[in-house]
């Protein structure tokens, strides 16, 4: 308070940030690129978020910018599938999306943590409308095929019982003086009070069936009005079943910084962000260009390409500087004239496989029958989760949910299926949660990132060893070339990584270009 009174709100904010109270990601506003020499040219490779951000800021600073993009659209991995869209994957399988108007699935990025301040800054700047994305839903379900007879349980019940029994055990340990060594007498009292509140323990420090515990867990007969309004408490599961279930895994997952509230999504689909960026820079972008070589010498950069607008005719583009945002899964196969450290770094980062399944149903049975509004149900089956749409609640007619989202072994296996098999398998596994799947299903789409022809993978998969050996060389300017994208950040697989990487790359490139670094 003293700082606030003395120095005004800016100082307060700075002080808070320093104390770690208000820090988001490492974003400090739009880059300052003042003093650019007019006529200096920059070639940007890739029209994803990193590339378009670079083009936007560099042009604004006075640079002459051109962007080359392999796909026939801008946005990169930021994209959305709607009814009428077509998706052809490597191997030739083509899916025709049949979703009803207004429905969509985000095969790539789909949620934005509130602390991704770089991305949110540009969303605001470019007028991209955002709405809350529901990450945690206490009425959603948790499922382990080997627990509770394979029956999914409410997140709320698992959460309440897990904290209740854990608190009970801690309280008993305190009261039996089992924690004497680390816990002082003062701390004992605080700990006991905390455990009672956190775990909803009774006066004897037991977690038991009661109106009190049902106020978190929910009642068997809900609270009502009138003469018969009295509720009936619900019965906790046994401690053994709760601990053995492993379902507490999802409670801690939702506690991670990246999953905390408030989470956002663009209204109408994630590609509203890509489109927002494209609106600013699309006049600079040439689509359908396949880069085949990046060469450089002391005076500039020469990029060789095949122009798919002209039947694959070879061509060249020259510039003073180059910002390359091509994913390493692709760049590692392109001849790049750079020092040995950068070249080794480009080869050092494999790409994760990921699969997402979008399923359209004839009605929102999860809302209408089960009062699940947005949020995620988790399972130990390969589909790993079902995410309910965080938008257009209570509307009639068909709606699309995310019927599976996986990485690792499950993603490898699903990517190996035909698109139809992916959808069928997601329906089979998801029906564990919702028997309505069978009667309400309309159509679906299954996107395997390892088969996306333009990325051959989902996102960078850094090992500790590669990060140590190669990250610095990957991100440093090499002659007239700098790399950007989520792979050149510590926020891999998030759009924020692309934003922060690009801001860093163009800031350093600008300093080099004006002779200040």
């Amino acid at each position, binding site marked *: 308070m003293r700082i606030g009174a003395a120095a005004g709100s800016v100082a307060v904010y700075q002080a808070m940030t320093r104390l770690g109270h208000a820090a988001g990601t490492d974003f400090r506003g739009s880059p300052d690129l003042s003093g650019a020499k007019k006529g200096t040219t920059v070639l940007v490779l890739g029209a994803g978020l990193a590339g378009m951000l670079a083009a936007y800021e560099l042009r604004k600073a006075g640079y002459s910018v051109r962007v080359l993009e392999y796909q026939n659209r801008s946005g990169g991995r930021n994209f959305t599938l709607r009814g009428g869209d077509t998706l052809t994957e490597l191997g030739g399988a083509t899916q025709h999306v049949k979703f009803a108007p207004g429905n969509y699935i985000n095969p790539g990025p789909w949620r934005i943590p509130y602390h991704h301040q770089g991305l949110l800054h540009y969303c605001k700047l470019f007028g991209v409308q955002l709405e809350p994305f529901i990450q945690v839903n206490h009425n959603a379900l948790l499922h382990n095929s080997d627990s509770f007879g394979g029956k999914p349980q409410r997140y709320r019940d698992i959460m309440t019982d897990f904290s209740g029994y854990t608190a009970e055990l801690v309280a008993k340990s305190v009261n039996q003086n089992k924690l004497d060594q680390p816990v002082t007498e003062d701390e004992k009292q605080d700990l006991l009070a905390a455990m009672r509140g956190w775990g909803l323990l009774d006066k004897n420090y037991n977690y038991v069936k009661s109106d009190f515990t049902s106020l978190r867990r929910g009642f068997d007969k809900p609270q009502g009005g009138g003469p018969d309004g009295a509720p009936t408490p619900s019965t906790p599961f046994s401690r053994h079943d709760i601990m053995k279930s492993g379902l507490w895994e999802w409670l801690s997952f939702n506690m991670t910084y990246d999953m905390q509230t408030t989470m956002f999504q663009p209204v109408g689909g994630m590609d509203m962000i890509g489109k927002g960026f494209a609106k600013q820079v699309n006049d600079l972008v040439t689509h359908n260009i396949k880069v085949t070589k990046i060469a450089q010498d002391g005076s500039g950069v020469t990029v060789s390409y095949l122009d798919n607008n002209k039947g694959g005719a070879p061509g060249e583009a020259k510039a003073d500087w180059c910002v390359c945002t091509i994913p390493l899964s692709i760049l590692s196969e392109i001849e790049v004239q750079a020092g040995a450290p950068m070249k080794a770094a480009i080869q050092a980062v494999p790409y994760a496989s990921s699969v997402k399944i979008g399923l359209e149903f004839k009605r929102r049975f999860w809302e209408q029958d089960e009062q699940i509004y947005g949020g995620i149900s988790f399972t130990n089956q390969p589909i790993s989760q079902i995410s309910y749409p965080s938008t257009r609640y209570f509307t009639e007619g068909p709606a699309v949910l995310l019927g599976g989202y*996986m990485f690792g072994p499950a993603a490898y296996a699903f990517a190996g299926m035909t698109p139809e098999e992916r959808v069928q398998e997601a329906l089979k596994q998801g029906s564990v949660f919702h028997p309505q799947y069978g009667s309400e299903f309309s159509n679906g789409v299954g996107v395997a990132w390892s088969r996306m022809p333009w990325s051959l993978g989902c996102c960078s998969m850094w090992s500790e060893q590669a990060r140590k050996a190669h990250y610095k060389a990957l991100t440093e300017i090499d002659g007239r070339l700098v790399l950007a994208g989520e792979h050149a950040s510590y926020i891999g697989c998030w759009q924020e990584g692309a934003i922060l990487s690009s801001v860093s790359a163009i800031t350093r490139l600008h300093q080099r270009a004006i002779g200040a670094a």
Partner: protein
Amino acid sequence: MRRPSRTLLAFLLAGPAMLPGRAALADAAANIAGEATHSTDGAEIYRQVCQGCHMQNGKGGTGAGTIPALAGNPKLASASYPVFMVLNGRGGMPWFGTMLNDAQVASVVNYVRTHFGNHYTDSVKPEDVAQQRGPAPTMEK
């Protein structure tokens, strides 16, 4: 008895310092990895692990980059090459040395070298794979 996920089990075995399961694959929710196949049948391992990229027919594909064909690939002449690739990956291809054991690697390499038009007669044994193993990479937390 199956647990919620293999990764979870790995966390438990590695000790509480590794919980919760945050990782470099941020949005990936890296503890949602699913269970690795236990099969030692080469065809089944290929189906579960390899064909998501290399395709059912082993022909790979080309877009902005290329996923190499295994069909008719002369680099398979020496079994040690595919064993190395499966264990360590290369470029955009991930390492599978931490996901597949020696018997599984041998089995899938033998499968690939005798299918898709490949007719190599020598086979790899788990011991050969064990000999080729180097230090395994560690996924970032």
